[in-house]
């Protein structure tokens, strides 16, 4: 079945620095990829989504490009802010099913 791998459990950065959070996936069908952000004691909220190969998608300063050749959808930002401290989830669905599976999440901690 479909699966998502997020290799970093915790990423700590100083504000103003760039960040990349890794996401790789496995599916035998055409993928739909999502990034969610979850702030403390809140629900996960959609940040980005894509199903188009090699096309950059952006929202709120974050961006990601779906690369089907490497099964990746890494999340990036050029300059992190204190307010970006949160839990980030990568999620996957595909053209064959409406089941949506999530990775284990990466906690981003931004310090002053």
């Amino acid at each position, binding site marked *: *079945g479909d699966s998502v791998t*997020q290799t970093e*459990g915790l990423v700590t950065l100083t504000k103003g620095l760039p960040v990349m959070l890794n996401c790789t996936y496995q599916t035998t069908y055409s993928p*739909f990829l*999502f990034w969610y952000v979850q702030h403390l004691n*809140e*629900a*996960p*909220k*959609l940040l980005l*989504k*894509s*199903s188009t190969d090699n096309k950059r998608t952006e929202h709120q300063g974050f961006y990601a490009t779906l690369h089907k050749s490497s099964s990746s959808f890494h999340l990036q930002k050029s300059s992190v802010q204190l307010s970006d401290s949160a839990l980030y*989830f990568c*999620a996957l*669905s595909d*053209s064959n099913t*409406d*089941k*949506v*599976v*999530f*990775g*284990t*999440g990466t906690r981003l901690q931004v310090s002053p």
Partner: protein
Amino acid sequence: EAAVTQSPRNKVAVTGGKVTLSCNQTNNHNNMYWYRQDTGHGLRLIHYSYGAGSTEKGDIPDGYKASRPSQENFSLILELATPSQTSVYFCASGDRGINQAPLFGEGTRLSVL
């Protein structure tokens, strides 16, 4: 405005008791999902539904049942609650294809003592 509402928001249950978590969506989405969130495990899919009358097993369905009596409502049922089911439970709704990105409710914090 699109909304997913869960009840109760907090629940304390006894081991062996029955627990029902309810979810209502006003988005007219076909798909609904139940996830649980535990530190180190992320969001794990318990059950999901394609529409009224349908339920599908997710990745961790053991110990849980689901019911979708209408487009708007999707319940998660723990017939015999156990302490290992202590968790935060999220309901979500979504559409088809790339628009199926789930929209989450605020979560239910369940403690089984």
